[in-house]
Structure formats: structure tokens, C-alpha cells
């Protein structure tokens, strides 16, 4: 790999993003899939969670309903994910990164920020070279490719990693920051979703150039705390540190629908699948949580969030699902249709403190928990699809 850049020696903040992570893991484990379009997602009526690059060329995108994805790409191989394997691979990648720096801030299983400041002596090479070695090792030793963005802050590093996917290595130096940003749309900013985008557009802000025309005071007055951040980002400034080893505060999963839905049945299926994903991640990392959160976004982007403290921490999908479903029933399905639904677990504690007592009024709960533990063991042995709940097929 040849990288040439004037500031290559002085840039130290990186963002690593695996390429089509779940699909890549599947292709690695089953070479027959290599040249086929692969979609990871749930059932015929589920949604796409990851599409490989071949499927992406055909127009398949994350969160698209499976039937639509299959219409675009009828020969796609659809695989229901194997979260336990992904978690394992993610840990291997994490271990490689930990050899480079203690300042790692994972954003999800397949992406993380790294701060390589002060590691030149240790590794005998500037960060750019160290990172190039990292992706090579990932590819050689784990069989997963990733893209790197290298810059002088987190915002730009994340933007950079997306510039040249897959197997990309992009650099944004201090000198070219302003020129790079000026014509770019503001939706480039991580966290600027469609709702924020709409309110920015109302203020006549589409690009960074638009943003630069605003006074700091005016931005603050119009957008509150986000205004000040926008002012800095417009100038390519981002002073957030890479939060190495930050304790996990919550585990959550959400999905945006391709088409808004008000169907209680469909939403219930999503609540179950999201609860199961959250539970899988909690189980994989030995964690549990005492607060369940349900998040819903309406078609007009207004969002509803409700949370409830459990009597004791849990990592059981059944408990998370039942609590989230209670919250949903409490909110009332009548507020729909919805465009997004999310389930989260917070108040994180180690798993040993979880699920120790039963429920007097729900004597069946102990049996359901035992059944879930048993099917977890079966899935561990025979794969994720060995046992699924009927509910997850909705």
C-alpha cells in the first residue's frame, strides 16, 4: 500500500470501519459465497441488516425490507446473522487494535476510533504505517477487510474512512481540511439525521459553506448546544477525545423501516428481534442492564422515548422483550405509523448480578428463562438458526 501525504507523519486520530462486516464474516466462513450477493437479515418479512458489496451494487441497502431487496437482487443468498460469531471476530480485531494503543473507542462491533498519538517510538513507525499494518493483519490473520480514515480529529477521521470503501485508506490533513469540507453537505456530520437535516435546511444550511456564513452567536441562538458544535465542525474542529476504555453505559439496537408502519404485528416482530439482538450482545460481553428503553420515531421524525427500571438487572431476551412490549402498549400503538424503532438496555452491571429472582405473578417466567438459556446453548453449538422463536419470523 502506498500512501503519500504531506502531513502523514503528524496525523494521529484514526477511524477504522470494517467493510460490510457481517457479510464479510459469512464470506470468509463459506468461500462458496465469495462471488455471490450476500444479504444478512431476518426472514422474508424481515429487513436487511448488512449487504455485501456485490449486493450493494444492485441497489440493496441496510434497513431495506427483505422482499424489496430480493426483488432487486433475486439471486442473493440471505443469511440470518450469527451474532455470536460476529462478536467473536470483533473481539479478535479489538485485540489487534489493543496492541497499538490503549485509546480505542469502539462505536459498534465493526468500527472504532483510535488515538495513536505518541506511539511512533513504540511501533517504530508513524501512525499511518501502523494503521496500514493493522488492516493488513486483519486481512491476513482474521480474514476481514477494513477501511481507515486518518486525520487530526474524530469527526474528520470518521468522514475519511468512508471516502474510499472498501479497503480504503484516506487522509484528511490540516491544510486541506477547509477546502475539503467547503462544498460538502452538512449531512456528512455524524449525528445529523434526517430530522436535524430538515431543520438545518429550513435555516438555509445545506453545505459547510452555508454553515461558515453563520455567526457563532446566531448558530447558538438557533440550534442551542448543537449550534456551537456546528460552528466548530464547519471549521473542521472537533475537540472530543478518543474515549479509550470508556465503560459501556448502554446496549441498544434500532432499525429504520423502509416504509413507515403502524402494524402492531410487524412492530412486535421488530421489538422481539431488537430485544434478542440486545440480549445477544449483553450475553456475549457478560453484561446485563436494569433499565429497558423503547424508542419510536414517527413519520414526521418526532420521537417518543420511554424507559422503565426493572426490579433487577437482566440479560434475558424474553424479559427485555416483555418490558419493551409493555412500554409499547403503554405508549399506545395509536401514535403510529412509525419510521424507526429501537430497544435499549442501560444501567449496565456484570451478568452475575442479573436474573437472580423470579416473578410471583408470572410463575411461567422461570421456565421461559430456562428455555432461553437452553436454546442459547443449542445455538452456540449448532449456529444461530438452529432454534428461532416463531415471533422472530413475523
Amino acid at each position: 500500500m502506498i500512501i503519500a501525504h504531506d502531513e502523514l507523519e503528524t496525523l494521529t486520530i484514526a477511524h477504522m470501519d470494517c467493510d460490510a462486516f457481517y457479510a464479510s464474516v459469512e464470506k470468509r466462513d463459506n468461500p462458496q459465497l465469495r462471488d455471490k450477493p450476500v444479504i444478512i437479515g431476518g426472514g422474508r418479512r424481515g429487513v436487511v441488516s448488512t449487504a455485501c458489496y456485490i449486493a450493494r451494487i444492485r441497489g440493496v441497502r441496510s434497513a431495506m425490507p427483505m422482499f424489496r431487496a430480493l426483488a432487486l437482487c433475486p439471486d442473493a443468498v440471505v443469511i440470518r446473522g450469527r451474532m455470536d460469531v460476529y462478536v467473536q471476530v470483533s473481539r479478535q480485531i479489538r485485540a489487534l487494535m489493543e496492541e497499538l494503543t490503549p485509546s480505542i473507542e469502539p462505536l459498534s462491533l465493526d468500527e472504532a476510533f483510535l488515538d495513536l498519538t505518541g506511539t511512533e517510538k513504540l511501533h517504530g513507525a508513524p501512525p499511518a504505517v501502523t494503521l496500514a499494518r493493522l488492516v493488513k493483519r486483519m486481512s491476513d490473520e482474521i480474514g476481514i477487510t477494513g477501511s481507515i480514515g486518518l486525520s487530526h480529529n474524530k469527526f474528520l477521521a470518521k468522514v475519511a474512512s468512508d471516502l474510499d470503501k472498501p479497503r480504503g485508506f484516506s487522509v484528511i490533513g490540516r491544510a486541506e481540511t477547509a477546502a475539503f469540507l467547503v462544498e460538502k453537505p452538512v449531512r456528512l456530520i455524524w449525528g445529523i439525521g434526517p430530522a436535524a437535516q430538515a431543520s438545518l435546511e429550513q435555516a438555509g444550511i445545506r453545505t459547510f459553506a452555508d454553515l461558515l456564513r453563520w455567526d457563532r452567536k446566531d448558530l447558538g441562538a438557533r440550534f442551542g448546544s448543537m449550534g456551537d458544535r456546528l460552528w466548530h465542525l464547519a471549521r473542521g474542529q472537533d475537540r472530543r477525545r478518543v474515549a479509550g476504555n470508556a465503560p459501556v453505559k448502554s446496549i441498544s439496537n434500532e432499525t429504520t423501516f423502509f416504509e413507515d408502519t403502524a402494524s402492531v404485528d410487524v412492530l412486535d416482530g421488530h421489538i422481539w428481534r431488537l430485544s434478542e439482538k440486545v440480549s445477544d450482545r449483553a450475553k456475549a460481553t457478560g453484561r446485563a442492564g436494569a433499565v429497558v428503553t423503547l424508542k419510536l420515531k414517527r413519520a414526521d421524525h418526532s420521537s417518543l422515548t420511554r424507559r422503565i427500571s426493572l426490579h433487577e438487572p437482566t440479560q434475558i431476551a424474553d424479559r427485555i422483550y416483555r418490558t419493551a412490549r409493555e412500554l409499547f402498549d403503554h405508549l399506545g400503538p395509536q401514535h403510529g405509523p412509525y419510521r424507526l424503532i429501537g430497544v435499549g438496555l442501560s444501567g449496565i452491571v456484570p451478568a452475575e448480578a442479573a436474573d437472580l429472582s423470579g416473578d410471583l405473578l408470572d410463575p411461567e417466567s422461570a421456565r421461559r428463562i430456562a428455555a432461553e438459556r437452553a436454546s442459547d446453548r443449542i445455538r452456540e453449538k449448532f449456529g444461530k438458526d438452529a432454534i428461532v422463536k416463531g415471533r422472530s419470523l413475523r
Partner: protein
Amino acid sequence: MKISIERAVLLKAVGQAQSVVERRNTIPILANVLIEADQSAVSFRATDLDIEVVDKAVAQVVRPGATTVSAVMLHEIVRKLPDGALVTLSDDGTQGRLTVEAGRSNFSLATLPKEDFPVMASSEYTANFSAPAPVLRRLFDKSKFAISTEETRYYLNGVYMHVAEGDGGRKLRCVATDGHRLARIDADLPEGADNMPGVIVPRKTVAELRKLLDNDDASIAVSVSETKVRFATPEITLTSKVIDGTFPDYTRVIPAGNTRKMEVDAADFAQAVDRVATVSSERSRAVKLQLDEDRLILSVNAPDSGAAEEELAVAYGDEKLEIGFNAKYLLEIASQVDRENAVFLFNSSGDPTLMREGNDESAIYVVMPMRV
């Protein structure tokens, strides 16, 4: 309106009113107490729209009338006045101010028109009976600790007061549960309570009711309808909406087949639990009970804070048993026993455990174990 009233009498009446008004409310009039003076008596009325309390107090009425004023502020003022003071409340009906005078202190408080004060609609009560204060005190004091605070299980956020078949006939019964422990308390059925509909009395109402029950000699007039419940003494009338929901069938969760019996001095047991629980932490609140031949070992093992163990002499003749409980729950049910030994009936370490006072079936408690 102009009245003169003793500071102690006023403090009691306003105290009850200010505890009913919601601290954070968006409707200003709900923060106020309605003071109504007729020829000879004064009443203080407060509401949060779910609960209404009216306290009649003896006062010298100089000029009848009515007004409303901040309950919390009036309470604070009266509280700070010297004991034995004579307080005069007066308004001239036009300035929108209430004057509070006592000795050399003089306050002028903003008022809101009495017409704006919401008075709870009266209800047709289907059952009216009277019960001695100590009976109601026992029913609610022994059950209220088990009331749930979970919002989604709103139907558990109160005490279920109803008529049920108990030990030796029909009983007035109070049940509360949060899904982890349950209390079922019986009292003799008062005359006239036969056809009372079962109602869920909200937590806050239970707390307000408690203030009516301190006098051992008092008799409380109870009125019940499907939607409301009223408790009254000659001075105070507490009216409350009941929780609109169905209390779950609790009879299913009271174990009938638990045979492994442990008898223990309730006070010793509670103190021992309290002592060992000192080292329990947020992460491990469990107390382990190991039972073997008249011997009970209570232990707590919290990896991040420490360990504790205590041995107690008990009466136990069954097979060895190890069972864990949430320390707080165990302590709370053990503290309910006030006269006799506590009798615990276990089944297995995963099944609900039953506790009662001696052989008295009129107060039983169920608690769910936890894995240790």
C-alpha cells in the same frame, strides 16, 4: 372572611392539606387550600384531583366567607409561629390578599378565587361501614410495604381492599404485591361491609389515610363505590379515586403445599438479617439461609465489599435447605411480625416461601427467593 384559630389546630389542618397538594403542578389553584368559614366552623380543603381531604377545625368565626391560598406557604408560616399563638386569618374580599396575623407577625398572601377550586364530585357509595382505627391501621400498615412502584403495572400501585373467605368466615382483606413479595392481611368483617366492591386504594391515599388512624379510640367511617373510597373521622374526610384496573388473582401465588417449616424469634431474625446485610452491595443483595437441624446460618457474600455470617437457633426438623433472598425483602417481612415467632414455610430454593406470625393465618406474607 375573618377567623381566629389556635396555632396547633391550624397547623394540623393545614398540614394535612399541604401533604395532599402536588408539589409540582401546573394548575395554580391545585397548590392552594380552600378555607371556608360558616357561622361556627372552618373547613380546610385540598385536592390533587385524585384525592380530596377536608379538615373541619374549631375556630372563632368573626365573619363567614371563603378563599384559597397556597397550602405550602400557609403551612410554613403556621409552622414557624410560636406555640400557643392565636392566629387570625382575614380577607376583605376585594384585594385578593389573605392577611395572617399572630402576635406581632403579619403576612399578606396572594389568593385565588374560591370559585376556581375544583371540588370532587360526590359519589353513590354502595357500602358504608365503620371500623375501629387500630383494625384499619393493622390492615394497611402490614400490607403497604409490598405495594409496587412499577408504572407499567399500575394496578399494583395500591392496596387491594376487598371481602374474601378467610380463616373462620368472611373477612375484610387487604392485599399488596409487587411481584416479588406479597402481603395478605385479614380482619373481621365489619357490619355493612358485606357487599363492598373490591377496590385498589392508591399508595398516596394509603399514606394520607395513615394520619387518620393514630387515635386508638377513633372509629373510621368507610364508604366504598366502584370508583371511589372515603374514610372519615368527625374532623377529617378523605376521599379518593381508586385505581382503575384489575388486581391479579393473588390466590394462585400463595403456596399451599410448602411443608418445610422453620420457626424463629422474629426480632432476633430481623436483627441478624440486618447485621449480615450490612456488607451486601448493589450488585449482590442476596442473603443466603442455610438450614440444618434447628440451626440457621445467615450469610452474605459480596465479592466487591465483603462477607458476613451469623448463626441463629431455630426450630427446623426437615432436610437440609439452602435458599437465598433479597435482604431488603426478608427484612421487611420479618419486621411485620410484632407479637409472636415468625413461621417460615419453604418448598425448594426456587419456589416462593410463605411467612406468617405463629399460627395466625390472618397475616401471611409470600416472598420470592433469589439465586445465590
